[in-house]
């Protein structure tokens, strides 16, 4: 048996154990069945949910907020990072502002989002963009600071224009950092998209969880939480695949692929 197969087998075993415990605990009366239904009922509820059109519409809403917010934050952060790097003195001057704004938890903006946009896509976008902007910006700033001075001087003495220097020297250096920022931001954006739906009530997966909870549909609520986890995994995997493709030329990825 190869090691990958063994690892997969162990992993499946882990999931089987989890399911077994979740099935046995309520049935044996260790936990109250009203609060933690057996795993089989949760999975059945998930299968039921997946057959309804409402669920897919909610999922599409969540993913739309996620993708749109992430795209806006990503473009804004890359632009801001390059500008901060290009204008002399701006990096030092902006440091304190960034350090102050960054730790403000984006959920603190929930009241503001409610006032400005109500329960709509706009609220979701405000939170998602604010949260993921900083993740990307910090990485872009690390990345552009990492440019090799010799390479930069070489490009300068060969008379490359400012734009070509950004294109051929700064961007390839910063790209691995930018991709890391994108990976972090994608996870954060998904969390905040669901949060906005859950707390403000904009349409999407979070709102359905909220409705399931307030109507006492416990198994459905667990099913939706499981679904949120699965979507989270899909988001992570998707960004990782993208990262490997974009950085296929980079030594860190090439080294991994080598036998």
């Amino acid at each position, binding site marked *: 048996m190869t090691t990958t197969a*063994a*690892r997969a087998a*162990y*992993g*499946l*075993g*882990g*999931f089987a*154990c*989890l399911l077994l415990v979740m099935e046995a605990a309520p049935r044996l009366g260790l936990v109250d069945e009203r*609060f*933690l239904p057996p795993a089989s009922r949760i999975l059945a509820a998930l299968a039921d949910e997946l057959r309804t059109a409402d669920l897919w519409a909610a999922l599409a809403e969540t993913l739309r907020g996620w993708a749109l917010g992430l795209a806006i934050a990503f473009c804004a952060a890359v632009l801001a990072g390059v500008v901060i790097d290009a204008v002399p003195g701006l990096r*030092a*001057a*902006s*440091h*304190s*502002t960034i*350090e*102050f*704004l960054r*730790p*403000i*938890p*984006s*959920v*603190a*903006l*929930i*009241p*503001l989002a*409610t*006032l*400005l946009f109500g329960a709509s896509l706009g609220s979701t976008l405000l939170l998602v963009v604010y949260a993921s902007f900083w993740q990307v910006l910090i990485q872009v700033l690390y990345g552009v600071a990492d440019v090799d001075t010799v390479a930069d001087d070489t490009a300068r003495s060969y008379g490359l224009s400012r734009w070509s220097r950004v294109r051929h020297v700064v961007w390839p250096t910063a790209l691995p950092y930018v991709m890391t920022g994108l990976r972090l931001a994608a996870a954060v954006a*998904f*969390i905040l998209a*669901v*949060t906005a739906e*859950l*707390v403000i009530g904009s349409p999407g997966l*979070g709102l359905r*969880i*909220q409705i399931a*909870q307030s109507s006492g549909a*416990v198994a459905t*609520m*667990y099913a*939706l*939480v*499981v679904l*949120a*986890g*699965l979507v*989270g*995994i899909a*988001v*992570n995997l998707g960004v990782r695949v993208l990262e490997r493709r974009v950085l296929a030329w980079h030594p860190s990825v090439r080294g991994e692929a080598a036998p």
Partner: protein
Amino acid sequence: MSAVARWAARVLGLPALLVLAWWAYSSVSQSFYVPAPPQVARAFADTWLSERLVDDALPSVARLLAGYALAAVLGVGLGVPIGLFPRLRATAEPVLEFFRAVPPPVLVPLIMLLAGIDDTMKVLVIVSGCVWPVLLNTVEGVRALDEVLSDTCRIYGVRPASRLRHLVLRGASPQIMAGLRQALSVGIILMVISEMFASSSGLGYTIVLFQRGFAIPEMWSGILLLGLLGLGLSVLLRWVERRVLFWHWSHRA
């Protein structure tokens, strides 16, 4: 003197400009939602320099710290054995990855169901979100321990307790600190959300209360306070990190 002035200009220059721009905007715009900076400052002083600080802000911070500490202990305590034993790791890791992928806020309604709406629930919510970054980073850190070092330890017959302290925990500490840093921002988010859901005290509750009463300057002052809290905690954590990892940085520099 001029060095101090230059430092002040660098640190305070852009924030001052931004506040001035905000001020100018608020005096031009008639929007009800954009109060002028002095209004926010007055609301900040009136609201938070009174008993609200004791009644709302301190309990919030206490719950955050309790949940955070519990998550750190749990994360490191579970992460070390999972990192040390490859079979356990292969079994547990996919399950852990799944739990990490669940957005922590969706657990709030679930934990409310299981634990009611008192302080226990809020601490549990914070633990449920903070534990994953710490746990998974600990596993990574322990797994990546230098093999030569562990072999050396074994050959010299270093006892398990000191091996754990001097090799495993110390070797994994840069990763553990990285996990703690990620967990801090998750913790603040969850603190606010758990209070917005069901609470009669706390920062999240108060800010939502102001918003519902259209007390806009007060609402802004609450957002400002959360920002200051986040900033303060991350500065504190960086200070701790520098002390704990001084050997790491001096080694790499």
